[in-house]
């Protein structure tokens, strides 16, 4: 549990945040220059709030009333910077070992980190000799090895190279599975952030204007405006039920009501084993709605659920469906009135198995 109550004056505005963050991953979302990075700097000690209180897992890092301000080097906060900030004069191996503490028994060993992040072949290289993605992974590994109590990731998806942008994603998911420490991930990229977590904290002009489940935040127009016109991604935790190497289809599903989702599983997306947990991603505008099950259609996935909310979004509508998990579907106002859908309607959600992306 992270408890933050800070006041930090900045040039154009004041960063005033009073929030509690629970375990797991929380996405910090907001436009550029809204104070997201300032928040991370306060937690890490790089910036000092004018007044307030910060604690991580019950340990007080900053308290202006009690005059406590733990030095940066003793905070045990893991901070992965946007640019990586690898030490240019050290090899990848030396960078990784830089923060290993002698006494502490880390949650993850050096060997585990280099295998998990695929760094073994570049250990002797210098940071300028490796690719952008490798640099990002090295920075992540270096931070993990300093055995932090909390992990702060600043814009992990903002690599200049578009093909690199989401490359780090599966690694972050794997890390979260392996070591359960709270993570705050700052990003201004909603689709990438949603692939990591549905729990978001929205920052605007230095203040938190919404904190909670993404599906609930969508209902608040002042918050959903900030999400902008970008596509909405459904990110769902699933478990592999069967794999079928011949047809290259993997069947994933969820426990409650035995419904199954088929996803195509190219070799490039990895080999999945039965029982393995993974996340699947479907764009809200890749899902179609139908009032009845359709048999003569190529679409393999037909999931049955109940409409819980209908939220206007610009010229379109977002229909939130509870199918054992939440699913957001983007349709036009015209479709809605034509089909006569309302809150409580029973409905089929149709999506192609090739429209699903997978990580984990």
């Amino acid at each position, binding site marked *: 549990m992270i408890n933050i109550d800070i006041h930090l004056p900045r040039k154009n505005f004041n960063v005033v945040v009073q929030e509690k963050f629970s375990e797991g991953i929380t996405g910090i979302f907001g436009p550029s220059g809204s104070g997201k990075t300032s928040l991370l700097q306060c937690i*890490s*000690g*790089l910036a000092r709030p004018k007044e307030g209180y910060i604690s991580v897992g019950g340990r007080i890092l900053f308290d202006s009333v009690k005059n406590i301000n733990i*030095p*940066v*080097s*003793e*905070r*045990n*906060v*893991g*901070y992965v*910077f946007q*640019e990586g*900030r690898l*030490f*240019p*004069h050290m090899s990848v191996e030396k960078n990784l070992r*830089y*923060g290993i*503490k002698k006494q502490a028994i880390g949650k993850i060993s050096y060997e585990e980190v280099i295998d998990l992040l695929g760094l073994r072949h570049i250990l002797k290289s*210098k940071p*300028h000799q490796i690719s952008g993605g490798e640099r990002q992974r090295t920075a992540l590994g*270096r*931070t993990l090895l*300093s055995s932090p109590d909390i992990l702060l990731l600043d814009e992990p998806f903002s690599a200049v190279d578009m093909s690199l942008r989401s490359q780090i994603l599966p690694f972050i998911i794997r890390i979260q599975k392996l070591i359960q420490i709270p993570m705050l991930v700052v990003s201004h990229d909603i689709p990438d952030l949603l692939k990591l977590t549905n729990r978001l904290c929205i920052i605007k002009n230095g203040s938190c204007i919404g904190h909670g489940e993404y599906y609930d935040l969508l209902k608040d127009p002042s918050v959903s405006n900030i999400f902008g016109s970008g596509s909405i991604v459904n990110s769902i935790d699933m478990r592999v039920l069967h794999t079928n190497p011949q047809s290259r289809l993997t069947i994933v599903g969820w426990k409650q009501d035995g419904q199954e989702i088929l996803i195509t599983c190219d070799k490039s997306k990895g080999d999945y084993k039965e029982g393995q947990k993974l996340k699947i991603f479907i764009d809200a505008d890749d899902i179609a709605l139908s009032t009845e099950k359709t048999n003569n259609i190529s679409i393999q996935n037909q999931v049955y659920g109940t409409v819980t909310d209908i939220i206007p979004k610009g010229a379109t509508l977002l229909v939130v469906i509870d199918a054992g998990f939440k699913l957001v579907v983007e349709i036009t106002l015209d479709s809605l009135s034509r089909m006569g859908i309302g809150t409580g309607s029973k409905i089929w959600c149709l999506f192609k198995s090739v429209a699903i992306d997978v990580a984990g």
Partner: protein
Amino acid sequence: MTDFLGFNSTELQAIVLSLKVAVYCSLISLPMALWLGYKMARYNFTGKSIIESMIHLPLVMPPVTTGYLLLLVLGSKGFIGHWLQSAFGLKISFTFYAAVIASVFVSFPLIVRSVRTAMEMVDTGLEDASRILGAGRIRTFARVTVPLALPGIISGTILAFARSLGEFGATITFAGNIEGETQTLPLAIYAYMQVPGKESATLRLVIVSIVISFIAMTLSEWFIKRIRHDKH
């Protein structure tokens, strides 16, 4: 020790003394320059510009003036020099120490400037990253700041070493021209020039001082190149 490689004892003493003064001067200046250069590069404090002007003063003042000021303060009649002599029996002016002190004052601006510029070039973000990884300020300084500023630190040290080798005005004013104690190469060359018939001896010493300076410069270039290769 006479006639080693054709040098007589006076000449050898001058060569050895010059190297000794230059090495002492570099060794004394370096830690002070690292500390001061870091403070100047990273912090703003009241009186920073005054300290800066004071450090740089010997660079623009005639060395004789620097020597004269040192004599005023540290000479046997100067207020610190007098106290040192009466309290500890320590005489500074016109001794080997005086030659080292004169060199330190004259070469200090050069080394501080180089160290400071080199440290200003080091990304403070890397120092932040180091501290977040659990390294305290001293460890961060030793493992991140200094290694990344190393080319500038080395060239500054070599510059101080070379400036010390060439020091004349402040040394002759504050330390005198005492054979075997304060007579460094430039002073010996000057003394030889005053004596008829010492032309070839003068030339020998001139060549020696050129060779020493050349070796120092080459070594520093080689070091810096090696570090850059290491980094890139």
